[in-house]
């Protein structure tokens, strides 16, 4: 059982949803990036989605675009991302870590070399928003033998037929995109979301995590009532952006803690 699968199994026992936190490596700068990631793990994130910053992230809205560009300009690259994971593991962080990045970062590095080094560093899997499952065969062949999970997306626009094929290829969990669009903070969750999750549930036994637009504890609470995980990215970046350098770690801890306390599985009345 992979570290990711184990995490979901344990949370299910506890009747909790997974809190999955996205943050790009090197954001807001390389000096504090590692300690912020550690703070996120220590404050209750169940899985960490570490962004491998790409300067042209086509599936991301302005908040993550800006954060990634800043991280790239700080000199962050895939070697540094791998190193960061090694250091986190060496310091005792056992939280599952997946790399979230764009195809070309990984392709340029060489998939074979990447897979080997990722495992050695302690990476558990990959989320690649511009790699649809239909293009992924060569990637699966390189990653699977190393025990790396390749996490695929399902969108509200994914047809039922296609979903059936996607769920067969994925491992770890399925990333369910809440709404047609790019990443970014949103006021409310779409009304169709529970139905969308319910429909995928009929097709797969993999854990289902929801991302895009999940912005606060209320959203996390709602998503946790019907899905297995809630993914938060842009909202945390905004917290970091607004914090002063003295308080940033504290603010991040408080925000993640607050989100985590909303993952207990309770029935939520939609208003």
């Amino acid at each position, binding site marked *: 059982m992979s570290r990711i699968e184990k995490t979901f199994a344990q949370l299910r026992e506890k009747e909790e949803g997974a809190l999955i936190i996205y943050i790009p490596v090197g954001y807001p700068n390389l000096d504090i990036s590692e300690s912020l990631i550690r703070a996120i793990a220590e404050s209750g994130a169940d899985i960490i989605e570490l962004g491998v910053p*790409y*300067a*042209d992230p*086509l*599936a991301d*809205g302005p908040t993550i*675009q800006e954060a990634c560009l800043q991280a*790239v300009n700080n000199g962050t*690259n*895939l070697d540094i991302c791998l190193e960061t994971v090694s250091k986190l593991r060496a310091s005792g962080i056992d939280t599952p870590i997946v790399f979230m990045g*764009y*195809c*070309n*970062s*990984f*392709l*340029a*590095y060489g998939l074979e070399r990447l897979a080997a080094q990722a495992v050695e560093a302690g990476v558990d899997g990959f989320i690649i*928003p*511009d*790699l*649809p*499952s*239909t*293009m992924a065969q060569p990637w699966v062949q390189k990653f699977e033998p190393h025990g790396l999970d390749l996490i*695929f*997306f*399902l*969108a*509200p*626009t*994914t*047809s039922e037929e*296609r979903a059936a094929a*996607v769920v067969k290829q994925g491992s770890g969990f399925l990333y369910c*995109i809440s709404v*047609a*669009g*790019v990443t970014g903070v949103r006021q409310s969750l779409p009304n169709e979301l529970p139905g969308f999750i319910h429909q995928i549930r009929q097709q797969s036994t993999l854990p289902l995590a929801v991302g895009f637009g999940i912005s606060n504890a209320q959203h996390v609470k709602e998503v946790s009532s019907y899905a297995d995980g809630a993914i938060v990215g842009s909202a945390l970046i905004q917290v970091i952006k607004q914090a002063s350098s003295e308080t940033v770690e504290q603010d991040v801890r408080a925000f993640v803690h607050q989100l985590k306390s909303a993952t207990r599985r309770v029935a939520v009345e939609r208003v």
Partner: protein
Amino acid sequence: MNGFFGQFGGAFVAETLIRNLEELEHEYERVKDDVNFRNEVAAILKHFVGRPTPLTPLHRIPSKLGGAKLYLKREDLTHTGAHKINNALAQALLAKKIGKQRIVAETGAGQHGVAVATVCSLLGIECVVYMGAVDAARQAPNVQRMKLLGADLRLVHAGQQTLKDAIGEAIRDWITNVHDTHYLLGSAVGPHPFPKIVADFQSIIGQEAREQIFEAEGRLPDYVVACVGGGSNAIGIFNGFLDDPEVKLIGVQAAGEGIESNKHAAPLVKGSLGIVQGSFTYMLQDAYGQILETHSIAPGLDYPGVGPQHSFLKDSGRVEYTSINDREALKAFEYLCRTEGILPALESSHAVAYALKLAPTLSEEMIVLVNLSGRGDKDMNQAIEGLERLAQLELEGVTV
């Protein structure tokens, strides 16, 4: 999965877009041989766009320079002034068939944006055009035209603020508005099926040119030369001759400040393999796969990737890709104006510049056909400034 030219191409895009891409491919396959659709496109191309465009033999340049005969395929004489309208029109009609009421497009030089704004006005479709702020500043006349035509023009301040960034923003808009919106991509780039669809819609250039050169000369040309940004005008004219191995095909990319300077836009000459904006192709990237900045005086060529079919044609050896720098393009721009009374786009000036180098090395019976992809009205300020800079440098004794 089809959608590859050899190893090149594919559709590396967000899952959210897959349905639209599949729908586009499906609908395209359904209508492309449909007589009604083809007649509709052909009628508008004839009565509105002004096709067929002429094939112009040049007289003064060959008599001055010697060497091969030169012919220009005059895409500059289409309504809106560039080949872009061929694709914009046909794709907009296709979008209408799919039931989309809103079109988004990117533009670099502004020629594609003007073409899209024009056909949207003609067909009564809502139109949003994304343009890099840097490009908007250097192509001001086209900015005004798009606005006059009723397009919602949105300036992009991200990244290098040029064509790549405009495509990026158009794609994000499309992801957000998948249900009612068609993305009318303007070159033979991006995810499948765009490279194929755009190439098909531009193939009218090669079909006409082939007939016209036969009519004029009773034979095929020896060389066909076209500039390559994303590669749509080039693939359009090449498609008329791909199966004639005796015709040499030359794609000209932008060498910017010099092909060895790192300030160019020539992925087919200096690039490496990677995935850029949905497609596996030659591109300009650093060791970590970040897309590199590009440089060209011609906004329509200022792009770090290239259509996957060109990557395939490069590796198969069927097409030779070379480059022309800013200075050579400016000189060709001026020379064609002075000597033949034709004002070429700065993009097309790259193809002209190459032909001006090539022709004198060939014998008089040989024929060089150049795709004059667009007209240069949009480039007046840029070109005049550039030429003044060159003149100043020459005065100062710098060899240019």
